[in-house]
């Protein structure tokens, strides 16, 4: 069974819970309501043999409702198929953990919590993973400035605001010559 057929099977099995699906460049994405996302992921793991959780990430659709979106990247070593599962999350809503399905989700979910501020129900160790405990912000949210904000936690850490004269500094891989490719303040015509 290839990814296309799996998406069809998931649509049949979960019916109204599936909000949509998309295929682009051979990559299959399926959207699902948050209430059913864990059920669907468990089905993917148990029945569709997606034994490898590649990554969990999250999006911030700032000013949209619901604001956040969870993204799960699945892969199966047996059938070599790739599937992306997406689910929209409102602010102040917890997402069910998938650590009991794929133990590797532990650190991925901690990163999502640290960077985006989405909490996970049933997670065994819901702490920050990159920033320190007590850091007051979630840096990957769209309303957080790239230069950072000031914070102070005595004896642990402090942060300041980075100078961004002319920035942000953009890398252009593949550009001709070092000057064009290396990170510099660049203005792009839109």
């Amino acid at each position, binding site marked *: 069974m290839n990814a296309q057929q799996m998406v069809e099977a998931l649509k049949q099995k979960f019916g109204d819970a599936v909000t949509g699906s998309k295929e682009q460049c051979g990559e299959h994405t399926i959207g699902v309501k948050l209430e059913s996302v864990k059920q669907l992921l468990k089905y993917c793991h148990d029945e569709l043999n997606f034994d490898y959780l590649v990554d969990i990430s999250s999006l911030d659709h700032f000013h949209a409702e619901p604001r956040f979106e969870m993204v799960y990247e699945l892969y199966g070593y047996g059938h070599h198929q790739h599937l992306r599962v997406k689910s929209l999350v409102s602010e102040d809503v917890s997402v069910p953990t998938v650590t009991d399905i794929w133990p590797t989700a532990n650190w991925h979910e901690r990163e999502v919590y640290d960077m985006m501020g989405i909490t996970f129900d049933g997670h065994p160790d819901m702490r920050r993973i*990159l*920033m*320190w405990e007590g850091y007051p*912000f979630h*840096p990957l949210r769209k309303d*957080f*400035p*790239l*230069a*950072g*904000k000031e914070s102070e936690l005595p*004896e*642990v*850490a*402090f*942060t*300041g605001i*980075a*100078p*961004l004269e002319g*920035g*942000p*500094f953009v890398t252009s891989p593949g550009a001709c010559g070092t000057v064009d490719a290396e*990170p510099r303040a660049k203005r792009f015509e839109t």
Partner: protein
Amino acid sequence: MTATAPEPVHAAYDSKIEGNIVITKLDAAINWMRKNSLWPMPMGLACCAIELMATGASRYDISRFGAEVFRFSPRQSDVMIVSGTVTYKMALAVKRIWDQMPEPKWCIAMGACASSGGMFRSYATLQGIDRLIPVDVYISGCPPRPEALLEGLMRLQKKIDAEHSLMEQKRELIEELA
């Protein structure tokens, strides 16, 4: 009975001492000793640390300058080589290690990140280690080549050579007694 002939004694010239006396200033002697046996504290935090290791290895051979004794204990080291990106999470740990190093101590900020934050103008990166600890030598580059680190080390040696700490102590003592 044969007696060994005594060594001839010259009033103006003693061959027993010849070649064993160096006349210098105490400051100069101390500086010479300090600058030629700098024990680095390798604060390797990112890719610059790879160049630091290359500098310590056989091809570039930092021991030519007497700085080959990398110490992982701050209490035994003289110069902290901050090589790499200092994140805010690591910053106070670097400061703490610096505080544990005994005087006299020096600091080399190796590479763009340690000197100024480098390309990481972001919420997570300290914009230069000189915001926390005093830096003696800045080395440009991303990362700097081992030759650049050796050049920085030689600059530091020149700086140490120009110190006159003992003279200053003496002057302070004289002023105190006066």
